[in-house]
């Protein structure tokens, strides 16, 4: 439905879509609350209400799948990643439709490897992907369970397998996202990391269609990790490499972050931000990623606060605005 492929522009438009039956009351309210999406749940209880189950009904799915895809498009940069994901999603969707019409369909292999530096959007994309898979009816719940070494590797024999089973169970119907996955295999002889990998491979085998596994981490280390167990590499359908953000993309990300926090930049501030973004991208003040950008902005906000302390009665516009001098400490 054409209405759903774009964001509504006003309250009236949202209500009209509701009135004309294009969206549900839940979706309407989430538009009104702006950017809010009702996700099934990310936590512990495994109950799914009848209505949530019904919403993964295929006749509604094309229309609904657009919402997650829209979120994906709205991310800054990541051109190739988005393209690759659209492909995976389209393929999954069509295979499903084929099987519904009794045409031969390929079993879905959706487990993926996301490699790249920290703060390049891996978790965000994984979360959106979970949502899209839910929208098109591939995953029943569409939530994301994050795990790292400490959640999985245990302290005695058998403990690891048990911890892994627990995580996989929590992720059933959604995505299990293991960050810095290679840390599972690190450690010497007396380490249970090997047990963890075996348990992981077993879970991928046993509960094949019930969850999607995404392993994430630095590119080189992920490469090494995939050689640690012979069956590992071939079990992952997609290998996506997340590039560092360019300076321009970092500026756009920063602008979004500032808008969210209700700050604005003076023209001097804008120049300073560009310098900072250039420096980030060149690796001067940290890596080219969104997280270091956020940290730097927060530092600038603190500098602004200190600057305004000397002013007994700051105006609204003074409170809103970051100037070049607030970035100075970072640049010099």
């Amino acid at each position, binding site marked *: 439905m054409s209405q759903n492929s774009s964001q509504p522009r006003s309250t009236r438009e949202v209500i*009209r879509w509701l009135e004309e039956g294009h969206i549900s*009351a839940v979706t309407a309210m989430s538009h009104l609350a702006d950017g*809010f999406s009702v996700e099934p749940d990310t936590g512990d209880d495994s109950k799914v209400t009848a209505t949530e189950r019904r919403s993964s009904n295929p006749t509604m799915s094309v229309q609904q799948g657009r919402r997650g895809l829209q979120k994906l498009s709205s991310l800054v940069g990541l051109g190739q990643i988005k393209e690759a994901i659209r492909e995976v999603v389209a393929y999954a969707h069509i295979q499903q439709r084929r099987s519904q019409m009794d045409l031969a369909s390929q079993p879905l292999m959706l487990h993926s490897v996301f490699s790249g530096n920290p703060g390049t959007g891996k978790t965000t994309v994984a979360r959106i992907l979970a949502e899209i898979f839910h929208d098109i009816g591939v995953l029943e719940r569409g939530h994301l369970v994050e795990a790292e070494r400490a959640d999985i590797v245990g302290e005695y024999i058998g403990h690891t397998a048990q911890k892994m089973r627990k995580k996989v169970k929590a992720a059933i119907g959604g995505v299990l996202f293991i960050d810095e996955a290679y840390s599972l295999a690190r450690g010497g002889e007396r380490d249970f990391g090997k047990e963890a990998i075996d348990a992981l491979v077993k879970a991928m085998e046993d509960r094949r269609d019930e969850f999607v596994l995404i392993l994430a981490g630095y590119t080189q280390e992920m490469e090494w990790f995939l050689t640690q167990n012979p069956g590992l590499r071939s079990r992952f359908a997609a290998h996506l490499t997340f590039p560092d953000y360019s300076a321009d993309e970092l500026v756009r990300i920063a602008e979004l972050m500032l808008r969210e926090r209700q700050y604005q930049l003076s023209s001097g501030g804008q120049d300073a931000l560009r310098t900072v973004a250039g420096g980030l991208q060149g690796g001067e003040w940290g890596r080219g990623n969104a997280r270091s950008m956020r940290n730097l902005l927060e530092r600038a906000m603190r500098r602004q606060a200190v600057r305004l302390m000397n002013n007994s009665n700051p105006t609204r516009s003074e409170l809103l605005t970051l100037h070049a001098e607030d970035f100075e400490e970072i640049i010099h």
Partner: protein
Amino acid sequence: MTRKCAIVGATGCGKTLLFWRMCKMTKADPDAAQTHSRSRSNSRMYSGHIRMPYKGGTGAGSDEWTLIDTPALHDSVQTPGIQAAGAATLRLLISCDAVIHVIDASRVGRLGGRAGLYRVDRAIHHLIMHADWPKLRRSQNGVQRPNREHASWIDRFLPVLRRRTERVRNGKLNSPVYIVAANKMDLPWSRVGHANIQKACSGAVVLPLSARRGDGIGGLFRHLAERRLGQ
């Protein structure tokens, strides 16, 4: 000045019973033209004017409220009639002074966890607590007039809405007074449900009550009177 209070919620939570109970307790004379029958009332709204005495900082007096029972909001897309009714309900929700959000506490307790709440319940709570209300109300930009069955009661409220629009323009309006009514407290599981609702509806006032027995409704009135706007 008459303020509007909407009773909203998912299907079967007890909105209509609560509406009649509140009207009866204040000897209000609900709109007699819209007779109540559960099957027909599903996509209708009807209203009652209630007067509530209050004792506030500004001295004794009374508040005039128009209480409005609304059709249920649903988790998924429904038949055209129900969709149109949902649209009317959201218009009302955006423009009213107070919202009583009814949730069936016994159902929540029985089903457990977040699964016990309908998705609309979470959406209503989120909308009221987190939307940018001045902006929301500005962008509604008056009320669009739907042609079909809701026209008649919208007509009746138009003058009220216009006055509100002025107040919105003057930047005086924020979010509505929000009360979550944990209903059906007379049934099993409702205590568990009440606790769950409190957890899920963080930041909101949650009042346990039973529309059937009339317990806890006094507290509802007190709250409306204390939190009235525009003074």
